[in-house]
């Protein structure tokens, strides 16, 4: 048979086969069914050979990254050596870099046992935590839920392409060697399988640091003989950065990273400007600037817009909506988000403990929510499991003679303790009314109340809080006596004298931090720390220098939290930290906030050391790369006020 005929016969056979298959499917299955998406589960081998996968990416190579000024400065000043800090030594690759990291990928599928549809894909890489991609239509968590290294992912099939949408990501890096992301980026991935090839298009949308989304593609090949290696990681409590300071934060001052153009010595055909990134440099139109036919300033490019409403997402971490939201944390502990401030609640057999009481206007809603929560959690009704005369003897409704089905549980135990982490209005505003709903035995007879005071909860705070709220006899106090702390401490810490809800609770003083009277509260069995105003994921810390606050005190307080807290695994989870404002955090989040404040402190100190006035320091914008994330030009705490507080608190004491 000649070749042409061979080809014609083969083609005819193929057509027949397709027709037969189509008729069989049509007759056997009735009406057309939705297309079955391709199976992407299995072992996949990385085919990319990009510089950021197999080799060492050069420092300062921002080619193709649509950086804004903040993104560029953040990349220039963040040292790769940050990996050596105890909190980051075992962090996995950031989400955008996982597909580019070595070691291949494994995709597993979890099926609904009844419908056998895929309910969750699990993605694994050599340097990753398990990454679930939920296919069951669930919603993304609220903004005040924690962020993780892999984020929260949901997927949907669009034809033969799996679209994955990821939110709740920690800050990290676009690729190794410098370019950073904020913790507000979202990531959209498109996975398309063509036979044995899997193409992943990743869109990183981070308006804090980029003028438009960053897009890259990575290719994998199906390879059932490969297996994803598991990187073991043993971190230490000491910094790998040398020296003996475990709190050392390596970074470059702006303009002092001299290595950014080092790589161009061997790649001298590349002009410097595009290596610094920027949206105008990544489009073909940029070539016109190289022959000077158009200036960069006048260049127009078809830039695509970000779909990430980042300002709203930051605000939603601490919603000022006049309502109360409750997030279960761990063990006995719940986070109460109350109109722009967070409270911490411990619930259990001993009763209720409240860390901070919110603003006065929220008292009714806070009381109602906490009572409902306590009833549901600590005093939940249970069904009767034993009927008849042979039940073990129990007093009350459950006895054999009271054959009820549903119990009527005792009311929740009362509020016993309030702890104020500071004298800020959002921490003490509810003291007066909330304390009187509680009971702490301190009367002349055991279990009794002081006769002329009446039952009320114990209110614990550092003595500077009481000093600020009260006044000596004959002078007018800032707050009524009923709102004052009843039990103060003056030492480095205050241990509650006995377990509460089955655990030790220790109140630590953070000296000269936001003010002179700040505390953080450690729930030692639940592994939760209530950080007060030391930590805010929605703003720079409020530092009241006139009340004894200082930037160094805030950084020391954050370091104190990091010394107490332990990550569960690979720099994530473990001890949870409830911030004064914003989303629930873990060690890596606190480290990120500490790192940011350390960088800003060192920049202001450097500028001040050069003899700059406060106005000159402000004009130098030492917070520029963090303003999009934490700054504000309006409201009660602006970036200007923060820089001024840092500057003033770095004054040498005379």
């Amino acid at each position, binding site marked *: 048979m000649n070749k042409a005929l061979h080809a014609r016969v083969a083609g005819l056979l193929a057509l027949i086969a397709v027709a037969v298959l189509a008729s069989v499917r049509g007759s056997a299955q009735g009406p057309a069914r939705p297309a079955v998406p391709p199976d992407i589960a299995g072992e996949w081998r990385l085919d990319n050979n990009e510089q950021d996968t197999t080799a*060492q*990416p*050069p*420092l300062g190579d921002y080619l193709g990254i649509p950086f804004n000024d903040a993104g560029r400065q953040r990349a220039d000043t963040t*040292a*790769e*050596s940050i*990996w*050596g800090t105890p909190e980051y030594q075992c962090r996995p*690759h950031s989400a955008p870099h996982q597909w580019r990291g*070595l*070691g291949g990928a494994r995709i597993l599928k979890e099926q609904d046992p009844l419908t056998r549809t895929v309910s969750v894909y699990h993605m694994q890489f*050599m*340097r990753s935590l398990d990454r679930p991609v939920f296919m069951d239509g669930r919603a993304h968590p609220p903004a005040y839920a924690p962020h993780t290294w892999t984020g929260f992912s949901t997927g949907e099939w669009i034809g033969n392409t799996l679209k994955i949408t990821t939110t709740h990501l920690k800050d990290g890096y676009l690729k*190794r*060697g*410098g370019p950073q992301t904020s913790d507000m980026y979202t990531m959209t991935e498109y996975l398309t399988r063509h036979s044995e090839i899997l193409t992943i298009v990743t869109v990183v949308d981070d308006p804090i640091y980029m003028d438009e989304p960053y897009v890259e593609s990575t290719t994998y090949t199906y390879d059932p003989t490969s297996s994803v*290696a598991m*990187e*073991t*990681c*043993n971190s*230490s409590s*000491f*910094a*790998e*950065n*040398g*020296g*003996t300071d475990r709190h*050392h934060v*390596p*970074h*470059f001052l702006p303009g*002092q*990273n001299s*290595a950014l153009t*080092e790589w161009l010595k061997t790649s001298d055909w590349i002009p410097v400007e595009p290596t610094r990134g920027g949206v105008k440099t990544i489009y073909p139109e940029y070539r016109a600037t190289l022959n000077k036919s158009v200036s960069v300033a006048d260049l127009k490019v078809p830039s695509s817009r970000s779909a990430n409403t980042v300002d709203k997402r930051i605000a939603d971490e601490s919603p000022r909506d006049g309502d109360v939201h409750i997030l279960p944390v761990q063990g006995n502990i719940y986070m109460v988000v109350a109109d722009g401030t967070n409270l911490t609640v411990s619930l259990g057999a001993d009763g209720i403990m409240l860390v901070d009481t919110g603003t006065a206007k929220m008292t009714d809603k806070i009381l109602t929510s906490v009572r409902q929560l306590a009833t549901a959690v600590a005093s939940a009704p249970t069904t009767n499991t034993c009927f008849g005369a042979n039940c073990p003897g129990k007093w009350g409704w459950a006895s054999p003679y009271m054959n009820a089905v549903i119990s009527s549980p005792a009311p929740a135990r009362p509020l016993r303790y309030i702890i104020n982490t500071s004298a800020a209005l959002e921490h003490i505003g509810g003291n007066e009314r909330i304390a009187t709903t509680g009971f702490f035995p301190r009367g002349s007879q055991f279990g009794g109340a002081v006769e002329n005071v009446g039952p009320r909860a114990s209110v614990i705070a550092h003595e500077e809080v009481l000093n600020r709220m009260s006044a000596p006899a004959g002078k007018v106090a800032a707050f009524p006596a009923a709102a004052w702390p009843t039990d103060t401490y003056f030492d480095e810490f205050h241990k509650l004298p006995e377990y509460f809800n089955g655990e030790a609770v220790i109140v630590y003083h953070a000296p000269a931090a936001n003010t002179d009277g700040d505390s953080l509260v450690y729930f030692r069995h639940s592994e939760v720390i209530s950080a007060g105003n030391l930590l805010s994921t929605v703003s720079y810390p409020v530092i009241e220098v006139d009340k004894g606050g200082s930037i160094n005190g805030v950084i020391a307080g954050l370091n104190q939290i990091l010394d107490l807290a332990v990550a569960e695994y690979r720099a994530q989870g473990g001890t949870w930290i409830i911030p004064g404002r914003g989303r629930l955090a873990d060690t890596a989040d606190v480290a990120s906030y500490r790192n940011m404040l350390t960088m800003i402190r060192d920049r202001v100190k450097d500028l001040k050391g050069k003899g700059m006035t406060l106005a000159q320091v402000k004009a130098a914008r030492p917070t520029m790369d963090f303003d999009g994330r934490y700054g504000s030009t309006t409201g009660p705490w602006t970036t200007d006020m923060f820089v001024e507080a840092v500057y003033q608190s770095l004054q040498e004491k005379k």
Partner: protein
Amino acid sequence: MRRMLLLVIGTALVTATAAYAHHSYAATYDVSKEVKLEGKLVQFVMRNPHSFVHIEAPDDKGVTQRWAIEWAGTAQLGAQGVKRESLKVGDEITITARPSRVPGEYRALMLSLKRPLDGFTWGNRTGEAVD
């Protein structure tokens, strides 16, 4: 025989991938510079993804500092005959290394290690470079 060969290749691949840095060496260390440190070993942590040797040695101003020298992971060191007990606290050693890019940071990437007492060395034979 074929199975043995596959096993060897497989092991080599795993070793190679496990040893790759999660951070970038070129960005962490100045690979155009070299420092020589002579002093007393105070800690050897053999671990993954990278081991660390701590040495008390003078900085460029003559002030004794505790330096952290990043070394290879356990798989690479093990394959090259280095054990946890190969180095002991108090050993007088000489290290050449790439210094950190961050000013004032006492951190470096191991190039070679020598213990004059018994001639123990690392860094001069083929493959003795931190992956």
